[in-house]
């Protein structure tokens, strides 16, 4: 197999994952350390060794002094919260962003200018003061908003605190005493009993029926037995360790403390979770990206015109004021607020659909998600066992597994079914809680374990009231089960005189992990009916006949083979299979009070009725949701369709879903050599439709995953990225695979390497196109293994891949990435919290944006690490909810798809919003440029600009968030975070230099009209500025010879401001209309279908009117009541914008990929 060799080479390979970021290496190492599996081996030690290791006594416990010493050494047994950033620093950070800094500078310049002008006794300098105050207010308010957002994400450690026990029973120096749990030290002997929380990580020394609930740690809700025996190599799997913070449900146990505080498993997870930095959300990166550009441009423009102004001969202070004005004009002050409001609107919309978004930016993240790592239990499945299949009359029947279990469709006329249903009904200890007659069966609460519940409900639905049936066949006797009287298979041999008829039969047998064998005897009229259920092969051993179509036939080899086939088939579907059989006994065969131990002697020569297979079925909505994800993402194509033999073969090999661990263990080694398999998906690339634009020339090549992970440098193509929905579960591989296949994570016809091997009847390693893990660039940026580079003769056909935690444990991160690249359909089974984190990171390293769903505490590190963590609202633990960015109130995977849809929509709409917002910066900026260079009276003031930015234009830009999608966004690929930027070059160029230019022309036209009609002709205006602004000039002549005082000119200037303002508003109405669509015609989209937008336009105009015509405005905000007709001057330009953009869109639609499209489609 060569696995040793290849793996030893692994670390030396030239492509260790790029050391991410250059911050605190020590912390980084610590984290890396934590990501490794637990190195605890205490569970394997014998008790004396353990005593020696911790120098304690397993009878008397620690000596008080030693305990005190250790307490001093190790610190208290509690979770330490990490040192957080002080609140004021957090707030300060909000005030020190790129744009904010610019605004601070602008405000400072304003204040300086105010101070200097005040000192000189200039009139009108109060404007600068107002402006400074307004700017500071904008920064502070935006900062408070951001701080509040951040403040809402609560401290993750707090949620772990709730889990920690308060008191512990400890034995020290032979005395039993109650102490605070935080005083426990390593080596302490503690006692736990039902109802306690486990006070530390404990190696069990002795236990009596102890069961713990590990759900807070692993998310698995079934109680787990704890006993002193070491049952597994992994400390997480073995039974003789109980974990800090888990709940002891029943029984008692004594154990030795092996880890305390932060060194416990939960402590590690907690510090892992809080140590994982929150990744910046994609939208935050986008916004940062373009804020940088804006800030850079603002400074560039400001500095340029500062120099120009100095050269022209303005005094220094004036030039500084120009700089400030240009910054104010150019910086989109309202943009951050707009983005926040747009996101929170979507968040609200999502909340109505059961997705609560904690972190606003997460709204968009979901839209750019390219990989969803989904938990299985509860998210993809209904989280309850349900009967899925039955086998009787040598036929597999399918049962209804939908959520409501309305009806069963299989043939129920056979007599075999009558028997089988009777056995199912009677051989069942579960019962409904009383008082639920009106509740639908599926929703009734049941006392009993998962499979019994499933069978009970199944019986209730199919044959009618169970309690009635049980009444008709009263139970003669039963054998109470406990773990000590296991039904030993060998007991058959110790038959004592043919057994004693009349012994009450009721035995649980725990032969295998598959579950118990259960026997009971019921009175049925003048006969007795013995019913038995259990693991199929154990049941079959006791049968001599089989019921087929109501006839009892001898159980010969043919029937055995049929049984084997059916059993393997069902087992291969990942279902939990139980066998059922019965035997009619003469009345009085079994009498009450018989020794239960003797009872199995009666249970021989039974008649086999059938098999019932149960599974935690997928939620009905999930397959469609997964399919939607697929179309929304990524490849829809099919691999080479298998003939189904693979599955069959696997089922045969694996026997049952429950019993496969060993088998999988055997294949582990093989699995390791499988990575790097460039599955046969090359042929279904290039699905990129022409709808999916901006891919430019490259899009067709790696139509699907490829686009998410194109290399940064060089034109070389990278191989396809990982699959879209990855299942990561703690469950068994077969079950995981079955569910994955059922919901479409493994699509129809996809095969795992094992399937391929089985189908082609070749050894597994031949399926595997080996690539050398040492080949350059694994996990690196370039030179990744070339797809279509066959090494073995067998074509690469395995699209799917199931990887177990055990396999993962031995892998280098780069290897995992290879696997993720090679197989578009991935299932990870039996994974630990650390491994989940590793999987997420590997996907991220491949350039994917990863969403993770989870519910347990164990998921919290991965949730936090993910670009977007999605916690389950019902099943989720507090820690998971705290670590997540989003909570699904209904635990339904389908809600995520809604989220994806909304996220994509909001990305598109934000793009539109930003395009709209940016456009007006040019007509705000040009007045200053013309003012400085052509010395016209100032056409637009800073305060007016702030009104446009922060008041009138906010509403239309927010209303664009309500715009519906232009096309079916779920049929597009997820955006490529490298290329599909929120603000790209065509967007900026088109907004700034085309639409913005038209708006500027509109503004200046209106400006010159207003000036000319009041007496100042355009040519006079040029160069007028020095005299116009001379406060001592009280008789400036206009073009008609009239003489104006300074104040009269000032009001005329305000009129210009207002006219320019109105022009921008009018053009912005046209702008918001064109921004409704990026490629569709406005008429196709519907001009008035977005009612909010229409309202926003009306509102915007109303505010404009109010500002213009409210009395007192001229002296407060420098708005003048302007002449009515000046509103109409910019309208032709608005019309021009509409027509020009329609032409642009027409060209974009007609000629996709053309020069026009590349330059003008944003």
């Amino acid at each position: 197999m060569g696995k040793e060799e290849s793996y030893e080479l692994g670390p030396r390979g030239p492509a260790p994952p790029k050391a991410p970021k250059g911050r605190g290496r020590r912390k980084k190492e610590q984290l890396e350390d934590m990501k490794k599996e637990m190195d605890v081996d205490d569970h394997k030690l014998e008790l004396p060794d353990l005593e020696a290791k911790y120098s304690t006594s397993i009878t008397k416990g620690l000596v008080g002094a030693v305990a005190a010493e250790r307490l001093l050494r190790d610190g208290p047994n509690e979770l330490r919260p990490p040192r957080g950033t002080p609140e004021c620093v957090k707030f300060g950070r909000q005030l020190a962003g790129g744009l904010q800094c610019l605004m601070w500078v602008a405000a400072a310049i304003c204040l300086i200018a105010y101070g200097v002008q005040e000192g000189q006794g200039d009139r009108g300098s109060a404007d600068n003061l107002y402006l400074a105050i307004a700017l500071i207010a904008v920064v502070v308010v935006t900062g408070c908003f951001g701080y509040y957002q951040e403040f809402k994400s609560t401290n993750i450690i707090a949620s772990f605190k709730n889990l920690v026990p308060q008191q512990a029973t400890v034995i020290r120096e032979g005395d039993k005493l109650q102490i605070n749990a935080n005083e426990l030290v390593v080596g302490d002997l503690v006692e736990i009993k039902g109802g306690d929380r486990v006070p530390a990580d404990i190696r069990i020394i002795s236990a009596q029926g102890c069961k713990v609930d590990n759900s807070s740690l692993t998310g698995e809700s079934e109680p787990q037995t704890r006993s002193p025996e070491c049952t597994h190599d992994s400390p997480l799997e073995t039974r003789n360790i109980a974990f800090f913070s888990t709940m002891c449900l029943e029984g008692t146990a004594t154990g030795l403390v092996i880890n305390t505080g932060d060194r416990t498993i939960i402590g590690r997870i907690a510090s892992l979770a809080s140590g994982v930095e929150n990744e910046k959300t994609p939208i935050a990166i986008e916004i940062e990206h373009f804020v940088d550009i804006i800030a850079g441009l603002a400074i560039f423009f400001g500095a340029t015109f500062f120099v120009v102004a100095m050269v022209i001969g303005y005094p220094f202070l004036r030039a500084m004021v120009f700089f400030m004005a240009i910054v104010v004009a150019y910086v989109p002050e309202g943009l951050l607020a707009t983005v926040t409001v747009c996101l929170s609107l979507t968040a609200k919309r999502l909340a109505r659909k059961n997705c609560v978004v904690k972190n606003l930016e997460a709204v968009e993240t979901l839209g750019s998600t390219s990989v969803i790592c989904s938990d299985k239990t509860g998210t993809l499945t209904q989280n309850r066992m349900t009967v899925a299949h039955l086998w009787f009359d040598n036929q597999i029947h399918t049962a209804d597994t939908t959520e409501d279990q309305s009806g069963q469709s299989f043939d129920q006329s056979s007599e075999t079914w009558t028997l089988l249903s009777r056995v199912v009904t009677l051989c069942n200890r579960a019962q409904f809680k009383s008082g639920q007659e009106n509740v639908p069966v599926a929703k009734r609460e049941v006392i009993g374990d998962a499979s019994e519940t499933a069978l009970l409900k199944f019986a209730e639905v199919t044959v009618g009231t169970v309690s009635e049936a049980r009444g008709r066949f009263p139970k003669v006797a039963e054998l109470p089960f406990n773990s000590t009287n296991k039904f030993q298979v060998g007991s058959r041999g110790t038959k004592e005189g043919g057994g004693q008829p009349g012994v009450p039969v009721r035995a649980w047998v725990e032969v295998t992990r598959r579950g118990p064998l259960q026997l009971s005897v019921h009175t049925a009229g003048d006969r007795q009916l013995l019913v038995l259920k259990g693991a199929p092969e154990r049941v079959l051993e006791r049968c001599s006949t089989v019921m087929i179509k109501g006839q009892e036939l001898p159980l010969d080899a043919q029937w055995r083979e049929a049984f084997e086939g059916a059993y393997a088939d069902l087992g291969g579907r990942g279902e939990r299979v139980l066998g059922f059989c019965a035997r009619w006994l003469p009345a009085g065969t079994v009498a009450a009070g018989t020794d239960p131990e003797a009872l199995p002697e009666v249970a021989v020569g039974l008649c086999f009725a059938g098999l019932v297979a149960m599974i935690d079925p997928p939620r009905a909505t999930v397959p469609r949701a997964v399919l939607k994800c697929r179309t929304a993402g990524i490849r829809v194509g099919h691999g080479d369709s298998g003939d189904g033999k693979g599955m069959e073969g696997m089922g045969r090999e694996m026997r049952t879903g429950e019993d496969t661990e060993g088998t999988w263990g055997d294949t582990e080694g093989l699995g390791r050599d499988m990575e790097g398999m460039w599955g046969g998906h090359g042929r279904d690339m290039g699905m990129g439709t022409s709808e999916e634009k901006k891919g430019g020339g490259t899009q067709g090549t790696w139509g699907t995953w490829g686009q998410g992970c194109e290399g940064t440098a060089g034109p070389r193509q990278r191989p396809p990225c990982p699959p879209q929905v990855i299942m990561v579960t703690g469950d068994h591989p077969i079950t995981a695979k079955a569910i994955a296949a059922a919901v479409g994570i493994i699509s129809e016809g996809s095969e795992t390497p094992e399937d391929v091997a089985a189908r082609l009847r070749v050894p597994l390693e031949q399926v595997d196109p080996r690539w050398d893990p040492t080949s350059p660039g694994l996990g690196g940026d370039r030179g990744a293994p070339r797809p279509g580079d066959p090494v073995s003769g067998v074509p690469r056909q395995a699209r799917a891949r199931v990887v177990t935690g055990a396999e993962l444990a031995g892998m280098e991160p780069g290897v995992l990435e290879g696997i993720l690249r090679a197989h578009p359909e991935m299932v990870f089974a039996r994974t630990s919290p650390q491994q989940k984190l590793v999987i997420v990171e590997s996907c991220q390293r491949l350039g994917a944006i990863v969403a993770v769903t989870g519910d347990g505490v164990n998921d919290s590190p991965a949730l936090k690490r993910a670009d977007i963590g999605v916690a389950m609202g019902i099943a989720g633990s507090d820690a998971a909810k705290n670590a997540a960015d989003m909570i699904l109130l209904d635990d339904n995977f389908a809600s995520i798809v809604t989220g994806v849809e909304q996220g994509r929509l909001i990305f598109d709409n934000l793009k539109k919003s930003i395009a709209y917002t940016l456009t007006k910066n040019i007509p705000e900026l040009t007045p200053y440029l013309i003012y400085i260079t052509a010395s016209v009276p100032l056409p637009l003031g800073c305060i007016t600009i702030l009104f446009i930015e922060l008041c009138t234009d906010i509403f239309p830009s927010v209303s664009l968030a309500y715009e519906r999608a232009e096309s079916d966004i779920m049929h597009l690929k997820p955006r490529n975070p490298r290329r599909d930027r929120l603000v790209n070059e065509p967007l900026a160029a088109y907004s700034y230099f085309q639409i913005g230019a038209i708006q500027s022309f509109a503004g200046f036209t209106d400006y010159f009209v207003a000036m000319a009609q009041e007496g100042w002709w355009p040519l006079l205006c040029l160069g007028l500025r020095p005299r116009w602004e001379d406060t001592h000039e009280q008789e400036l002549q206009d073009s008609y010879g009239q003489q104006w005082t300074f104040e009269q000119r000032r009001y005329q200037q305000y009129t210009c401001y207002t006219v320019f303002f109105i022009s921008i508003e009018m053009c912005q109405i046209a702008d918001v209309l064109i921004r409704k669509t990026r490629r569709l015609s406005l008429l196709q989209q519907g001009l008035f279908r977005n009612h909010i937008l229409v309202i926003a336009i009306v509102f915007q105009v109303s505010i404009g009117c109010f500002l213009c015509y409210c009395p007192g405005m001229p002296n407060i905000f420098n708005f003048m009541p302007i002449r009515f007709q000046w509103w109409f001057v910019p309208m032709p330009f608005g019309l021009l914008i509409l027509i020009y953009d329609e032409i642009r869109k027409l060209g974009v639609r007609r000629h996709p990929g053309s020069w026009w499209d590349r330059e003008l489609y944003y």
Partner: protein
Amino acid sequence: MATLNEKKTCSERMENFRRFVWNPETKLFMGRTLINWVWISLYYLAFYVVMTGLFALSIYSLMRTVNPYEPDYQDQLKSPGVTLRPDVYGDRGLQIYYNTSENKTWERLVTTLQTFLTAYTPAAQHLNVNCTGDKYFIQDTFDGPNNTKLSCKFTSDMLQNCSGIADPTFGFPEGKPCFIIKMNRIIKFYPGNGTAPRVDCTYVGDESRPLEVDYYPVNGTFNLHYFPYYGKKAQPTYSNPLVAVKFLNITRNVELKIVCKIIGAGITFDNVHDPYEGKVEFKLKIEN
């Protein structure tokens, strides 16, 4: 996202930038091929030519529509501004300080007045007609030469003692200085509603305190026949009528605040936002 977040070193950034400016592999200059740059430049050139054309067209049609004789609107010119000569500005507004014993301090002021009055010499006014009626000089037709309207003569001698003819020092050395009050012209503005507007000077804030003033012409009125004004094009030689005020009892060495208002219907002097509308305020301090 890890790959996207990586902080780049400075040299990497420089390298990336260099690659952006000129990428030898793809022959991209600043993200575009050269030919592409030519195309995009041509496109923008065409775009801006068209836009400038449209703009020029709008301005041209604007100028075709505006009335060459009078403005369409006079929204800001409800009431005329008032100016003072000599006009020396201090920290806050007009501030006329001088010392009677130092010639230099008042000679500047006198020169200002003399220069100002050169526009009112008979020679400068020879194109204007003599008007006698004390009524508005309304002209509906263009009676003047070159299709203009007639303007009334205002010569400096009408200012009598303050004309600078008899006393070229305008009374400054004696501490009885002359100031000239001028009202801004506004097209088709009819001040006074039939009665001639007059200038009235008082101390600021203390109107009861007597300020001895001589007004020239008599009563300090602006004769109605100088109104209305028909605009630069119709009345190219129009000159504003003036009123001279001569302060007779100025307390020496004290800063006095004086306001000269123009009293007449249609002329407001109570606009808090415009200190020069209908009135002119100044500080006067005569030292010796």
